[in-house]
């Protein structure tokens, strides 16, 4: 038997439609609210002078909100990479004896070019540009 359309069913449908249409912007606003706005840091940071950089050493500094590993090689060249391991994000460290970059969380090892050589990481570390200006070394956002 065909259901009869009367005033009540029409009103019910209007209410359902109204509720659905109203809930879309409400739910959408809530979802947008909980996603934080992108606030990427743009700029540079002075990390020291050329004389201060001891060969075969490394240190982690902050650039904006992210950690950056700055290494001075045995040859005296200064290089910098994003310090978060590309596997699961732990902060890496420079190993003087092995001359590599190591993540203690899952054992990933990167060479001084930032490329993974062993362990579970499969992507290279992000290279951070270095600028030397009047003997002062600074790192800049990519």
């Amino acid at each position, binding site marked *: 038997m065909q259901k009869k359309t009367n005033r009540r069913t029409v009103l019910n449908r209007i209410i359902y439609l109204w509720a659905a249409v109203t809930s879309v912007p409400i739910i959408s606003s809530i979802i947008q609210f909980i*996603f934080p706005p992108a*606030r990427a840091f743009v700029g540079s940071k002075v990390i020291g002078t050329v004389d201060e950089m001891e060969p075969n050493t490394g240190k982690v500094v902050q650039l904006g*909100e992210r950690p950056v590993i700055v290494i001075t090689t045995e040859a005296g060249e200064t290089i910098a990479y994003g310090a978060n391991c590309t596997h699961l994000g732990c902060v890496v460290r420079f190993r003087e004896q092995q001359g590599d970059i190591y993540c203690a969380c*899952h*054992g990933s090892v990167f060479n001084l070019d930032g490329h993974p050589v062993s362990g579970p*990481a*499969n992507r290279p570390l992000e290279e951070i540009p270095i600028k030397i200006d009047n003997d002062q070394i600074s790192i800049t956002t990519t």
Partner: protein
Amino acid sequence: MFKITRDAIIIWFRNRFPVDTLARHLKTKQVPQHRHSIWYYFGGLTLFFFIVQFVTGILLMFYYRPTPDHAYESILFIMHEVRFGWVIRSIHSWAANLMIATLFIHLISVFYMQAYRPPRELMWISGVILLGLVLGFGFTGYLLPWDEMAFYATQIGTEIPRSIPVIGESIMILLRGGREIGSATLTRMYALHVVVLPLITLFLVGLHLFLNQYYGVSRPVKVKKKKEPIKFFPNFMLRDIRAWLGAMLVLLSIAMLSPWGLGEEADLLKPAPEGIKPEWYFLPLYQTLKIVPSRIWYFDGEALVNIIFLLGGLLLVALPFIDRKSRNDENNMFIKIIGTIVLIYLIILTIIAYID
């Protein structure tokens, strides 16, 4: 003159609250007795630890401050200056672990007894979701002390979903409140830990308990009826209380004899120390991620592990609909063997991760 007597108060309540109906129901409810009856206590024990978490959690909120500058300091204050603070925090941390352990045992026993079969599918689904929520409590609560271990466990934990194709990056940002772990992560985890998760959990625990009262306790498939069932009230309830008192004794003993520690304060720039590990209930996932190669055939190893664990969770939720044999009260050995293999895998990986 109007006189308020004890009987008058009881009558007043009886007329306004269905005490008699509830009492009648409790008196008619029965609990089956058989060689597997001991497993029935683990649901109640999980509830007991949840109540302990609720009470101690509220007490800790009086002093805890959820900002990177104050979180660690406020935990130190609770532990060293607030009277009984160290015990309350230790109970909260130990009860969290015991709650997860009893919940796992409860879930495993329900699985082997095939108690998820009709009409208890909703009890199973709400139970599996509750397991997910309890793991969520563990994860969000772990960061709150803002110590080194907590920081790195959260760093790894929030990075894990990143490898999931399409939505992974968004999930990571949503969890962290940004690209890096910082004050936004801490306030997010705090809000989830003390408001969002408790509200959903309370609702689901209510639903789970209501269904438990409505359908009664399930008898395992093919278990012979040798003994007569016992009354839920007061017989089983008194035995349940006995188990709760035992659990309280165990909890207090562990919390006082082995107080929950606090590591060094988190330093965002400090390289990860050796031996960083998540809590025991995340060790199987952690160890799998560690041993799986970065590329398996054409796929990203990490993404594959995440997807397999996610699918495993979904299959667990859908179990009552997958297992067709149990609907006819038949023993499903195939499902039990698969479950046992998964369980052995999880236990072995936990042991390897623990001693590694």
